[in-house]
């Protein structure tokens, strides 16, 4: 081998080493965040933490039950509102691949996906909070529901596109009406993909804070009424993390641990299920 070739091979090796090193650096911030939140948060979590509301500043102890219950309720309401809409819209787009309306509809979903979450918060404020005259958990659910839609629609559309058209043709040839072919044949076939889409969209919005700032607003007390302001985990973390009080920081750490692990777990479960059914999202 002459010197020139050796130089080129060395250069290639060097480049490969550099690329591998740069690529794997990304694991560091993730590990750092997980380890740090785990170390700080795990000591704060106990039965009291999960069943009590926050104490006023200066008193140690207290918990985040208001945020836990609030997060679950807000996300649940958002899911109930947006899943039927999102799945049906996904069906519409997968059934109508061409056409003017489906082009515009698809474009709208793309636009929706790119809208910053804070802008959704502003808009829902004017659509629901202002006309009603007060912050409410319901408006927060609407904001989160809007953010879920693009993910739901995309995953449903992509899943249903993979189902062989012969299934649909067989159903229609047997004389089944169109809606039964879709709802009893096509959708059950793509069920696993649709369900992972739902879980993925829940994972995406469970940690959203910005759209809740002007809608659900937050509440230091336990509230289960969707028409009243409600606390949620991300809101609690934001408010308490930026406060100057150590007791509140402690609550924020515990809440951050619960939120982070819920979101990561949802993502991992989604990954495992999609791998098992071999569905590409």
């Amino acid at each position, binding site marked *: 081998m002459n010197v020139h070739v050796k130089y080129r091979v060395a250069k290639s090796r060097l480049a490969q080493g550099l690329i591998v090193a740069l690529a*794997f650096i990304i694991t560091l911030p993730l590990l750092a965040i997980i380890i740090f939140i785990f170390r700080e948060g795990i000591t704060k979590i106990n039965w009291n933490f999960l069943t009590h509301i926050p104490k006023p500043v200066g008193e140690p102890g207290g918990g985040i039950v208001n945020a836990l219950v609030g997060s679950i309720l807000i996300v649940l309401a958002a899911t109930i509102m947006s899943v039927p809409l999102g799945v049906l819209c996904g069906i519409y787009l997968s059934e109508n691949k061409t056409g003017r309306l489906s082009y515009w509809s698809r474009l709208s979903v793309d636009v*929706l996906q790119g809208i910053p979450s804070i802008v959704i918060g502003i808009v829902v404020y004017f659509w629901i909070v202002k006309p009603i005259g007060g912050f409410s958990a319901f408006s927060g659910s609407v904001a989160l529901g809007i953010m879920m839609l693009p993910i739901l629609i995309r995953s449903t559309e992509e899943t249903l596109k993979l189902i062989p058209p012969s299934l649909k043709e067989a159903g229609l040839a047997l004389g089944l009406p169109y809606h039964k072919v879709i709802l009893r044949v096509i959708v059950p076939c793509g069920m696993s993909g649709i369900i992972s889409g739902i879980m993925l969209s829940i994972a995406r919005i469970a940690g959203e804070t910005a759209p809740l700032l002007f809608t659900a607003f937050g509440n230091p007390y336990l509230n289960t009424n969707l028409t009243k302001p409600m606390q949620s985990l991300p809101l609690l973390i934001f408010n308490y993390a930026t406060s100057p009080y150590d007791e509140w920081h402690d609550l924020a750490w515990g809440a951050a641990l619960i939120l982070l692990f819920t979101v990561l777990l949802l993502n991992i479960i989604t990954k495992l299920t999609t791998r098992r059914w071999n569905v590409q999202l």
Partner: protein
Amino acid sequence: MGGTRASKKISGSYKQIRAETLFRRSLIIIGAAMLVLVLGILFTLIVESIPSMKTLGLKYLWGRVWDPVNNIYGAFPFLLGTLLTSFLALIISIPFSFAIAIYLGEYRPRGWLSNFLRNIVDLIAAVPSVIYGFWGLIVLVPIVRSLEMKLGVLPYGIGIFTASLILAVMIIPYAASLGREMIRLVPSPLKEAAYSLGATRYEVIRSVVLPFTKSGLFAGLLLSLGRALGETMAVTMVIGNTSLLPTSIFAPGNTMASVIANEFTEADHSIYLSALIELGLVLFLVTVVINMIGKRIIKRFTNE
């Protein structure tokens, strides 16, 4: 007797046909609803920012002073803050996201190690932004502060640079996973031709893979930029939230999204509120345009 059975059958099939039309129609209505939703969002933003457009005019965007107490509204500090944080984050993220894309797309498309890296990248995208913000505030801010002391600038700790660091981590997954897809689309005959001419792996990447995927990688950067521009919580928690014009990249500042998050519920008169919404409108238009250009490029690239 047979007649009634037949008529029952006919009325049954009528019902089915009606159900079928109803189903088709509701699908179309829901498809149209997405368009209505997006237009509604745009319409609301425009209508609510009309008071500010009328009283403040175009100079609003170039005004350098933001002082709601004295009714002076200039959005330039926030525009500058947004551009600085986003582009700085983009520049910081480029080596990492391209390295991941090349590694996963070219060096090792399969195998447990690349699966591991891909999952890590997905989880980076999944961590809620408020958690990035909290971590940044407690861990990153002191680090940046000691760095600033070494550099001899005012050691705020919080500021545009810190926000960019966090943002860089948050946007890496978008450019990386898209870049990976694009790199995998490079036809192998092209690469094999280069190898058979005696090119090394690095030379193949530099003179075949990267030129071929140029536009796709650019689109990935655009989507990352769109994310960075609209990111709110993590930035709000570490940028320092001052309405003064930032003097350096280490100074505290504010972005369009963070000023909305901080001041929206405090806005006590209509022009103030409307000025904030106009910021939201600008943010909406900019991110939508950037996203659309990015997606257009990807579509053209994958169709070719």
